[in-house]
């Protein structure tokens, strides 16, 4: 059985095809004995792009990053950085630098020497080292901490040292492995913005590994969603959210309601589906997504795209089971007549009528917001 992920070509990617690639992976596979950690990965990361590898723990993100950095060699396939094949090139000769998950700062060196480490290895003149390290310190707001040892810095400061230590070398590509994972929420949000600004200012290609979908959505130009060593979808944040390729992506990026059923009819992009519970659903299949009449299909609708009321391509009666106040919106769980449960978000506004648990309601959504998912 050959399994192939659906690969629509979004307009951004098509436009980007003309851009030079900073990192290219062609059929890259990594096996640890019998275990396949990365499975036949083919993708291009463009110059100056903020590219994220997103996926649950153990899906092969770190392994992919380590192959780019040179700590692991691909079992199969080819890897190029800045157009140069990387097979057999040791990490210290690659034009990339890494911000490690645990920072891996040198405990015996102070902040200045940590940041200067790469420049000293590159035999940069002393005056220039002093100048560039000062600049890097200023960039990450560490001026005045040059003579501190890492053990006497806070987590956020250590993170900045790790960042400065990598950036000061002006790499072609900066690899970041869950760099904000150890920080608390508030600091993480601040650093997300700072990192994004920094990347924009410096124009360096960032390859960013995270398991946090929100983080990936807010920071990235493009995201590769991974599962079990395979890319499920490579797209812009908006496309990932609005047009998820399959059930995994739809469920991993944001919250979603999915229904499964048999395809009753296909008229161009419009698809009619009948669920086991007897619901008749009008849905939309993006171009290139093959839907065959009589086959099983899955559709997804985002909670914020469902309205209360009877107007819409899909309208069903149900009963409110649960109400959770979320601040800017309220989350309702509505049980439909067929037994399906549906999550609905409604923006909190003064004029909106409140529904409580046990109320009979109608919910509706449009076919355009009800997407047929690939396998």
């Amino acid at each position, binding site marked *: 059985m050959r399994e192939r992920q659906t690969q629509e070509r979004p307009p951004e990617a098509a436009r980007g095809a003309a851009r030079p690639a900073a990192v290219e992976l062609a059929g890259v596979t990594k096996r640890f004995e019998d275990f396949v950690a990365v499975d036949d990965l083919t993708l291009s990361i463009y110059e100056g792009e903020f590219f994220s590898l997103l996926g649950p723990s153990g899906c092969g993100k770190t392994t992919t990053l380590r192959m780019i*950095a*040179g*700590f692991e060699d691909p079992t199969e396939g080819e890897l190029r950085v800045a157009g140069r094949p990387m097979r057999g090139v*040791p*990490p*210290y*000769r690659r034009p*990339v*630098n*890494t911000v*490690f998950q*645990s920072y*891996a*700062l*040198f*405990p*015996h060196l102070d902040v200045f020497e940590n940041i200067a*480490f*790469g420049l000293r*290895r*590159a035999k940069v003149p002393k005056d220039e080292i002093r100048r560039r390290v000062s600049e890097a310190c200023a960039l990450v707001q560490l001026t005045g901490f040059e003579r501190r*040892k*890492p*053990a*006497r810095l806070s987590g956020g400061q250590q993170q900045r040292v790790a960042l400065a*230590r*990598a950036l000061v*070398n002006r790499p072609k590509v900066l690899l970041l492995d869950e760099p904000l994972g150890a920080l608390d929420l508030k600091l993480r949000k601040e650093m997300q913005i700072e990192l994004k600004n920094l990347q924009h200012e410096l124009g360096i290609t960032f390859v960013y590994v995270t398991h946090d979908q929100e983080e990936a959505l807010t920071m990235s130009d493009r995201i590769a969603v991974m599962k079990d060593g395979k890319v499920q979808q490579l797209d812009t944040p908006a496309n990932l959210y609005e047009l998820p390729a399959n059930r995994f992506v739809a469920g991993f990026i944001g919250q979603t309601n999915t229904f499964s059923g048999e395809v009753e009819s296909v008229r161009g992009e419009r698809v009619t589906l009948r669920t086991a519970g007897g619901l008749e659903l009008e849905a939309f299949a993006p171009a290139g997504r093959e839907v065959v009449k009589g086959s099983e299909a899955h559709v997804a609708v985002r909670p914020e795209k469902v309205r209360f009321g009877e107007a819409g391509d899909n309208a069903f009666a149900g009963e409110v089971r649960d109400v959770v106040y979320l601040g800017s919106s309220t989350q309702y769980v509505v049980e439909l007549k067929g037994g399906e449960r549906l999550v609905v978000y409604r923006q909190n506004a003064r004029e909106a009528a409140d529904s409580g648990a046990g109320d009979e309601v109608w919910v509706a959504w449009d076919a355009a917001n009800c997407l047929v998912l690939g396998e």
Partner: protein
Amino acid sequence: MAAQKGVDKGRGWSLGLAGLLAPAAFWLGVFFLVPLLLILAYSFGTSGVYGGITLGFNPENYLKVFDPLYLQIIVRSTVIALLNTLICLAIGYPLAYFIAFRGGSWKTALILLVMIPFWTSLLVRAYAWVVILGGNGLANRTLQFLGITDGPITLIFTPQAVMMGLVYSYLPFMVLPLYASLEKFDARLKEAAQDLGASRWQTFWRVTFPLSLPGVIAGSILVFIPSAGEFVIPDLLGGSQTVMTGNLIQQQFLNARDWAFGSALAVMLAVLMLGAILIYVRRIGTDRLEGV
């Protein structure tokens, strides 16, 4: 109120601490400090013709230490101890490095092998070397069997035999602290160094080695100090050829019965070692060890 409470708490602590430390303090006082003071007192005494000792303040014993005859022995043993430390470091570092980083699941077994010699007395092991290196011993017979030599050659009772014996018996004291400090070394730091452009060689000298300095210092002290005072190995493997300070002291106490001079020698050796350690730790210790 709060201050009062704090003081009470502090007092409780020091009482408890004193209680816990009492046995160790007693032990060290009776079996370490008292003999040390005794030796110090003896070193200023005067030995009688038939042994025995009259206490007093007699600096002559110390002047005798600087007699070229004895000074030469002290200098030589210091050089031998230094050489022993360097050889142990040169052999022990790669060994500890290999076990710590490449040992995998064999780590514990390998480090146990390093410790196996401790299971028998040093005396027994030194005698085993006498048997091996002797005129008709295993080493000579093997050399002849392989056709490398025609007849027995002198292996034992040479400075080289003493050196070999010292390295053999002190190597574990170097390997164990080195292993302990390399074992807890974070391998990700090596990757970080390589990521920043350091070759394997640079990674070792800039990151791995500086971070293993506590092990290097501990191992060097553990080898240097006792080997400078060693007397069993030079006695058995060096014969009359390689006399070390330890043998000299032993002779003064057991043969010459000049306890006063023996004590002065012992005090001098202790002072010398203390000075050497202080210089050593000052030079490569403090600033690099800080924050590790």
